[in-house]
C-alpha cells in the first residue's frame, strides 16, 4: 500500500475565525454598551465602569470552575450555599476570638471540603446525578449556616479585611486584579494542560476517556473541590464588601453562575465551549445589570432579561444547526 501523508497543520480560514460563538457575545456586549449609553449619560465613565466591576465580580470566581463542571456534563447547584456556609463559619470563628487571618484560611478550607464532599458523593454513587447530589448538599450546607448563625448578621471585621472588596491597587480594583489572575490560571489549566484536555475528554465521552487511561473519578473530585474553593473565594470578597454576613447571602448565585457559563457558549451536554466565552458573559451580564441599574430598572425586570438572554443562547446553536442542515425535514 502506498504511504499516505497526513497533514498536521491546521488550515487557517477567515470563516473559521469568525464563525465562533464568542463573536456573538462581543456583538451583544457592544449592543449593551450602546443601549446603556443612550439610557444614561453616566454609563460610559471610566471610574463608573471600573467600580461597577467591584459589584459583580464576586460571583465570577465561581464561573471559572463551573466551566469545567459543565464541560464534564455535570452541574453544581450547591455553590451559593457553599458561599454562605464558608462565610458564616469565618465570621463565627472571628467573633469567637480566632484571628482573622486564620479564619480566612479556614473559610477557604471549608469551601474546598464542601466541594470535595460533592465530588466524592458523585463518583461513589454513580446512579445519582450531580444535580441530585448538589441539590441535597445545597440544602444541607445552607442549613448548617442557619444553625450556626440563627438568622443573624455577623460582622465587625478588621479594617484590612475590607481591602479585599473595596480597595484599589494602582488605581485598579483589587478584585479585578484577583479575578484576572484567577482567569489566567483557570484558562491555562483548561486549554493548555493535560488536565484540561482530560476534562474535555470526559465531557465528550466519559467511557472512552476511562478506556484511554484517564482517571475520570479523580478528575471529577478535583474539579468539584476547585468549585468549592472558588465559592469560598467569592465568600471572602462578598463578605468584605458587605462588611457583615448572614446565612442567606449568595442565594441564587448558583443559577446566575450557571447562566453565565451557558451564555458563554459552554454546552450543558458537555465537551463543548471555552473559557473566553464564559468570561465575556460575566462582563456582558455585569455591565447590563449595572447600566440598567443606573436608570432604575428593577431587579425583577433584570431577571426577565437574563432569562430571555439564556433562552436565546440555548436556541441559537440549534437554529444554526437547522439552517446548516439545509432545511432537511424528518
Amino acid at each position, binding site marked *: 500500500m502506498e504511504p499516505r501523508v497526513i497533514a498536521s497543520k*491546521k488550515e487557517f480560514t477567515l470563516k473559521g475565525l469568525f464563525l465562533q460563538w464568542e463573536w456573538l457575545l462581543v456583538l451583544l456586549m457592544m449592543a449593551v454598551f450602546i443601549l446603556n449609553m443612550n439610557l444614561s449619560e453616566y454609563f460610559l465613565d471610566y471610574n463608573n465602569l471600573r467600580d461597577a466591576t467591584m459589584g459583580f465580580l464576586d460571583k465570577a470566581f465561581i464561573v471559572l470552575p463551573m466551566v469545567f463542571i459543565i464541560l464534564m456534563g455535570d452541574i453544581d447547584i450547591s455553590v451559593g450555599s457553599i458561599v454562605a456556609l464558608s462565610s458564616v463559619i469565618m465570621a463565627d470563628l472571628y467573633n469567637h476570638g480566632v484571628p482573622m487571618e486564620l479564619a480566612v484560611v479556614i473559610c477557604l478550607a471549608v469551601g474546598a471540603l464542601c466541594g470535595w464532599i460533592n465530588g466524592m458523593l458523585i463518583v461513589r454513587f454513580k446512579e445519582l446525578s450531580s444535580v441530585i447530589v448538589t441539590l441535597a448538599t445545597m440544602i444541607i450546607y445552607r442549613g448548617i449556616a442557619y444553625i450556626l448563625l440563627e438568622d443573624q448578621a455577623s460582622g465587625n471585621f478588621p479594617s484590612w479585611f475590607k481591602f479585599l472588596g473595596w480597595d484599589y491597587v494602582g488605581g485598579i480594583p483589587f478584585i479585578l486584579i484577583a479575578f484576572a489572575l484567577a482567569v489566567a490560571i483557570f484558562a491555562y489549566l483548561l486549554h493548555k494542560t493535560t488536565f484540561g*484536555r482530560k476534562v474535555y475528554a470526559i465531557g465528550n*465521552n466519559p*467511557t472512552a476517556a*476511562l478506556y484511554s*487511561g484517564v*482517571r475520570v473519578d479523580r478528575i471529577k473530585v478535583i474539579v468539584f473541590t476547585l468549585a468549592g474553593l472558588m465559592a469560598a473565594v467569592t465568600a471572602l470578597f462578598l463578605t468584605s464588601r458587605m462588611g457583615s454576613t448572614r446565612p442567606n447571602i449568595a442565594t441564587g448565585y448558583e443559577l446566575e453562575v450557571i447562566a453565565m457559563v451557558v451564555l458563554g457558549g459552554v454546552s450543558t451536554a458537555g*465537551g463543548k465551549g471555552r473559557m473566553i466565552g464564559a468570561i465575556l458573559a460575566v462582563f456582558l451580564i455585569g455591565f447590563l445589570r449595572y447600566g440598567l441599574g443606573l436608570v432604575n430598572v428593577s431587579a425583577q425586570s433584570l431577571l426577565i432579561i437574563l432569562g430571555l438572554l439564556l433562552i436565546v443562547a440555548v436556541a441559537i446553536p440549534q437554529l444554526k444547526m437547522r439552517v446548516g442542515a439545509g432545511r432537511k425535514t424528518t
Partner: protein
Amino acid sequence: MAKTEYVLELNGITKVFPGVKALNDVYFKLRPGEIHALMGENGAGKSTFIKVITGVYSPDGGEMYLDGEKVEFRHPTDAQKRGIAAIYQHVTCYPDLSVTENIFMGHEKVQRGTGRISWKEMHEEAGRLLKELGAAFSPKTVMGALSVAEQQIVEIAKALSVDAKIIIMDEPTAALTKNESEELYRITERLRDKGAAIIFISHRFEDMYRLASKVTVFRDAKYIGTWNVDEISNHDLIIAMVGREISQLFPKKDALLGDELLRLDSLGRTGYFADVSFTLRRGEILGLTGLVGAGRTEVCQTLFGIEKPDKGRIHYKGKPLQLRNPRDAMRHGIGYLPEDRQKQGLVLQWGIGRNVSLPTLEKFAVQGAINSRKELETAKSLAEKVNVKAKSVFDLVSSLSGGNQQKVVFAKLLNAELDVLILDEPTKGVDVGAKSAIYEMISDLACSGYGVIFVSSEMPEIIGMCDRVAVMREGRITAMLDREGLTQEAILSASMDGATGEEASA
C-alpha cells in the same frame, strides 16, 4: 393484485451507511406457515436486514413485497400495521409495568366515546394469549419479575395481539437454558401451525435443525443462497457462512515465542466468569472465542482494570498483579482495544490527533502543559504508520469509515509502552479491505514482541490468526486448542452444544 405464494419477498435490497455497504443486493422469500432460518457470521448484515423489514431503515435500493404488493415503509409503525413483528434477543420491554401493559403498549383497548382504558378487557385478552402460549404467570405480573424466557413469551404474546403474520425472532434462544429453549421451540411451532411466517435468526445450528425448513445465508452483507434445511450438510453450510479462502486473507507470520507475560490462575468474577486459566507469551497470539455473551469481554475488562476479579490470581511477568484502573493497567504495559470503538474507543467529536494522544498525553507535556506541536507531529506519524485514510490530523474521527476509526484506536495503543495487547473484536463492522490491513498489523505486532489476546466470534479470523485458542462458553473455558487442532468443528462444538455434558448451573 397479483397473488403469490409468498407473504414476504425482498428483491435486491441494498443499504449503504457512510463508508460501509451494510446490505448488498440481498434476496429473501418467505412463505406463510414456514420457519425460515437466517444465518451468517456477526456483521454479515442480518440485523440491518431485519431493520429494513421492520421499517427502521429504508433501503437505498431494491424492492419489498408483502402478499405480492409492493410496499415502502417509512416508519416502524408502517410495518407493524402490516402485521410484521420482531422479537429481539435483548427483550425491549418496560420492566416496571405489568405484562398486560407491555402487551398492549401502543394499542391499548379503549372504550369508545369516553377514551377510558378498559383494563378488564385487556387483562382477559392478555390472559387468553398467555394461556394459548402455555404460560403459567398472570397478566398482572410486573414484567421485571419474569425470567428472560418468560419475557420472551410476553413479547410473542405482544406480536399475537396485533395479529402479526410475519414474526421475526432475533437470536431468541441466546439467553435461554436448554429446557427454556425447548419451550420456545414448541411455541414457535404452534405459531407456524396457525399460519404465521417466521424468520428465525440464530447462531445455534441446533435451533435451525430443530425448527426451520429453509435456511438463507448472508455473508459480508451479500446474499449467498437459500436451501432446504434437509438438503444441505453442516459442512457446506459453514462454508457458505465463512466463504473465502482463509489462508490468503490471513498474513500470519510465525513469531518467536518469548517469555511468559501473563498467567491467569482460575480467575473468576461472580456472575460473569469462573475458573479462567491461561498463559500468554511474548510473540504469541492467543485467541479467545465463543458466542457473544460467553464472558470473553468480561475477562478482558478484568485484565484491563475496569472490573475487579473476586477469585483467582493474575501473574504478570512473574509477579502477582492487582489492577486498580485502566491507567494502572497501561502503566504496567497492558493495553485494551475495546469492543465498541464508538462508545469506548474514540471521542467521536474530536479529530484524529487528539484521539491518538489521549492515552499518552503525559508524553507530550512538560509540567502538565501540552506541547501541541509535538503532540500533532507524533499523532501524524502514528496515523501514517497505521495507514489511516485522512487529509489531516484534525479530521473528525466521526467522519472516518469503520476501518479507519479502528486504525485510529490502534494508533492510540501504539504510542504507549505496552507488552500485552488485548484486542476485543478488532475487525467488527470493518470492511474486508481494512480487515486484512488490521490482520497484517496484528501479525506484525506479535512479531515485534507483543503478547496479543485476540477476542473474536468470527471463526475464520480466529483460525487464521491465532497460535492457540481458548473457547469460552457460559463464563468458562471449555477448550484450549493448539494451532494443529484448530478446526471450525472443534471451536463450534466447544462453544455451542452441551457436548461436554455441562449445563448452565442456575
